[in-house]
């Protein structure tokens, strides 16, 4: 894998600042960094936590495939994607993507592309734990996420 690409799937939390510092250390060719952080929302107070299940091995492989495509397509200087699994409480971090490029639009597009495909192609599933103790269900895939992914086709 390209040394400028970092992929991790882990139970523990991550530190966006440390990941950014590692990506830019000693480099003068990076003019733009775009980072995306996904957080666990409380859904109007109803939610206590999410349980993130993943397919070990395939999750990393699929994220690496998406990252390689993003690097090439947008000419990125670096790309980091970290996704957590296990129980994640309201307000906690779920996913981090950082894209580095010379100019800002490539960095924005690279991070956005990575997230759109991470949502729809990387094997992760969310189950809700509700605050009132009732059984939460599996989160359903959103048509909006597929539409977001499809905007990258043919352009």
């Amino acid at each position, binding site marked *: 894998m390209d040394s400028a690409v970092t992929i991790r799937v882990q139970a523990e939390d991550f530190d966006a600042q440390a990941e950014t510092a590692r990506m830019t250390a000693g480099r003068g060719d990076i003019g733009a960094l775009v980072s995306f952080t996904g957080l666990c929302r409380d859904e109007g107070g109803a939610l206590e936590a999410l349980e993130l299940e993943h397919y070990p091995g395939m999750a990393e*492989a699929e994220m690496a495939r998406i990252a390689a495509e993003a690097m090439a397509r947008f000419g990125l200087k670096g790309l980091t994607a970290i996704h957590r699994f296990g129980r994640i409480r309201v307000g906690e971090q779920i996913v981090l993507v950082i894209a580095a490029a010379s100019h800002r639009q490539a960095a924005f597009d690279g991070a956005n592309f990575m997230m759109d495909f991470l*949502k729809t192609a990387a094997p992760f599933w969310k189950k809700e734990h509700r605050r009132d103790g009732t059984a939460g269900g599996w989160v359903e895939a959103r048509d909006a996420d597929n539409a977001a992914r499809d905007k990258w086709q043919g352009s």
Partner: protein
Amino acid sequence: MTRLVYFAWVRERIGKSEEEIALPASVRTAGDLLAHLRGLGEEYEHALQFPEVIRVAADHEHIDHDEAIAGAREIGLFPPMTGG
């Protein structure tokens, strides 16, 4: 023998996270596999009753239902992804 792995509500409904099974020679595609599994018991029928929504991966790569699964050591079955 082929290793099957299940995730999310597919795993919950089948009642196990993985198993090794011998597939008959007539099972050539991912779609054939889903049809075959539905005949193995009501837990499979419950998990796979809407096969068009089930995603299939062969050796950690997504495949379509009409693609061949010959030679795959591990096949994953799971619902649409909701990470990120």
